[in-house]
């Protein structure tokens, strides 16, 4: 009954990928609104959006790589394996969602 268990704080990892997706949404939406409101040059706004998008993609991809290669400690039991699998797949889902949702910032006209 006193065996080791996955620390509860690791449950936050279940949300990690999509929290980064949320961050991308908020920052891109706000940056786009500010850029259009203040009449930024289209090129500058496009680059700003692209940089923000790529930074978020890199963060998710880094977490994916980091967590996918880490093996759960055997003494933590099946719950650790389960959580790692779910976390890795939420990261993959978040990465795909980030690409699909925010790719328009690379191609569409900025402020019409």
């Amino acid at each position, binding site marked *: *009954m006193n065996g080791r268990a*996955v620390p509860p704080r690791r449950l936050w990892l279940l949300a990690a990928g999509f929290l980064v997706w949320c961050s991308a949404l908020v920052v891109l939406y706000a940056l786009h609104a500010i850029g259009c409101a203040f009449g930024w040059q289209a090129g500058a706004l496009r680059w700003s959006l692209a940089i923000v998008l790529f930074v978020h993609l890199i963060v998710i991809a880094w977490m994916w790589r980091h967590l996918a290669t880490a093996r759960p400690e055997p003494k933590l039991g099946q*719950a650790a394996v389960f959580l790692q699998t779910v976390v890795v*797949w939420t990261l993959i*889902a*978040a990465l795909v*969602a980030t690409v699909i949702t*925010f790719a*328009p910032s690379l191609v*569409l006209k900025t402020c019409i």
Partner: protein
Amino acid sequence: MSASVEQPPQGAPALRLHRQLVKIWATGPGWQRLAAVNHSVIGLRMVITSFVFFAIGGILGMLTRVQLATPNGDFMDAETYNQVFTMHGSMMLFLFAIPMVESFAVYLTPKILGTRDFAFPRLTAYGYWCYLLGGTILTVSLIARVAPDSGWFMYTPLSSNVYTPGVNADVWLLGVTFVEISALSLAMEIVVSVLKMRAPGMSLDRMPIFGWYILVTAMMMIVAFPPLILGSILLEIERAFGLPFFDPTRGGSALLWQHLFWLFGHPDVYIIFLPMAGALSTMIPVFANRPLVGYRAIVVAIIALAFLSFGIWVHHMFTVGIPHLALAFFSAGSAIVAVPTAVQFFAWLATLAHGKPRWDLPMLYIFGFFFVFTAGGLTGVMLAIVPFDWQAHDTYFIVAHMHYVVAGALAFPMMAGFYYWLPLLTGRTAAYRLAVPAFWLIFIGFNLTFFMMHLTGLLGMPRRVFTYNGDEGWDWLNLLSSVGSFVMTIGFGMAVIDIIVQLRFGRRVRRNPWNATTLEWAMPMPPAPYAFASIPRLGPGKEQAAPGQLALSLARGEGYLGFARNGWQETLGVHMTSGEPDQVIVLPQPTYLPLVTALFTGAAVLAMLFKLYLLSLAMALVTIGLFVLAGQRAGLGRDYGPLPIGHGASVPPHTEVASAPPWLALICVLVADGTLFTSLVFGTFYLWIAAPHWPANLAPEASRVLALGVIVALVIAAVAARGSLRATSAGARAQGWIGLAVIALLAAIAAAVGLIGSVTPHPHQHALGATAAALIGFVALHAGIGLLFLISNLLRIHAGFISPRRLTDLRLSRLWLDYTTVTGIIALGLVLALPALVATLGARP
């Protein structure tokens, strides 16, 4: 220093144990029923209450269909029609759908997770009474003909004072906020209970899929409701006190309301859908005779769905004039949200395809759901495409889509769930001669009613019109819709008769009639007030035990806590991930306090409604006092040390551990409150960037000295709270530290009030001043709540509820004051930054 406790009886026979536990757990007869806090009692009441509101909302829907059945209908005038359709939507969403899914969760979750009750039974009861009273206020307003009439999403400026000068909009804002308090409190209760109160050995990977659905849904509620609560508070402040958050003529923005509303409104669809999907994921494997396919994929899908559903609120606002690039974000998000939903669909279909499905009544409704929700999902993908949405926006196509996804996704799984779990409540089975025809009437009536609305919408019929001329080509479609609504109603009527027949004359069924594998069937039918006479152990080699066999073993007290001790309502708390027991949770006994507190909360709301603001404030203070009073009786008055729980194991009571349920509950509160705060900050930036009439020369001024004074006082209070915790841990007196924190908070409140008084432009004159006042008011309010924490600490130290081993109260105060300090620095920093922000507006082209 383990203190002696009454020893548990050894080898108690089932009947004796039952009698002992009933004596402790049962709700008393007569008036004592009003003191009930048991989840089974409250859950059942919520089910019944939500169905009463469903009936009222359904009748209102029927009235609209009568009005629209033929052109130039004069069954209702426009004003009455506005009230009827607004109340139909509001009741169905706020008084039926959300409470109904919560009632399922309240009644079933502890049983499915193998525990005896929720973590905070008094909060469950308070949530129920708030829901009942809030719903009653809304219903009475309908009878008094002052019901809300601005549509169920209360768009400004229609709902502002200028265009709705009566109390109609106030009834909605106050009544719905009242109900939201209930929903939010229950959501926190659910999160804590799912994470901390499962059967021993039920690690997260062993948790029934229903638990994951309910956990994710409750977390969504914690994040989704605060933006609407903030919007409702701001709109009510605008209506009552004239602060122009949504008034474009004074620097506000009507669109801010839409953002705040849909930040709640879109996730709400999934808040309704997910618990029903959880019910489907529980039922389908039972009828397929095989485990659910893709358990892990479903967990991933519901997490993805939860987040994506928040990121697409703007698809309700495609026509308001947002730049195309931003629309593309929300359009793409709205399309891909279908993917995690599809993952669940395919998992259900695969479960059926790979199993040996058997046909029974719940399966009829499950297939009805497949048909209806697929149709609704497809029109959802259509509406995610911006050009199509521009054509269909505000037409009956939207009404049709909305009913397919919300009503269809709710009604059919709900009926399936009802027929599946009703034997648990009654010990009897349905009368199939009524139930099967009832399904077909509901299914045919539903599709006849709402499918036609797609066509009327595509033919250009706008939503919310109270009549039409008859030359638009909508006549026969509207007539068919109306006929369909009557057919559907007859179906629901037959289902109600069937349920009454089942209750009265239904054939008795054996335990676990569906051969299910979840724990709610491992108990007496109908369930006893204690749910499990002893708590089951799951784990390797244990999961194969059928609930029927397990029930007998548990009834004999062969699980954990198979005894009565000290007259306590005991259950087990577990480690969040492994499910290993780590504490005995002693739950409070029945009490009238939740009812009384809800009555005073209701009185505060009503006084606000009748513009008796001082009385409202007094009632709110009494309510707060009652919460402090409730806190005085919580926990244990002395240290006990590890307590035996059976099977040779001992764990400490929840008062003596760091991971007690209140700690997790406060984290949930802070997440909800943080969302509200973030929404307020978002609102400030939104008005800055998007609202008209924010000229650069409108420079606000805030006293930096006062602002810094507030921040310094908050930091001192937070440091003092730490000091009180350290002192108590070391066995020293903490009163000095707490006194210092109290003085610091009083100083912070005084400085904040002074700051609000010095805000320019005056909060009545411009939204700039109003948002600054709201931000400072937020800080003052939280400092005030911090004071309550500290007063409660002093009282409980005096009463002996706090000791070096029982530190939860002081840890809660510390966390609250840390949070207040952080949000205070952000809020006041933003207030101080407003002049610079406004100055930048001069750079706009």
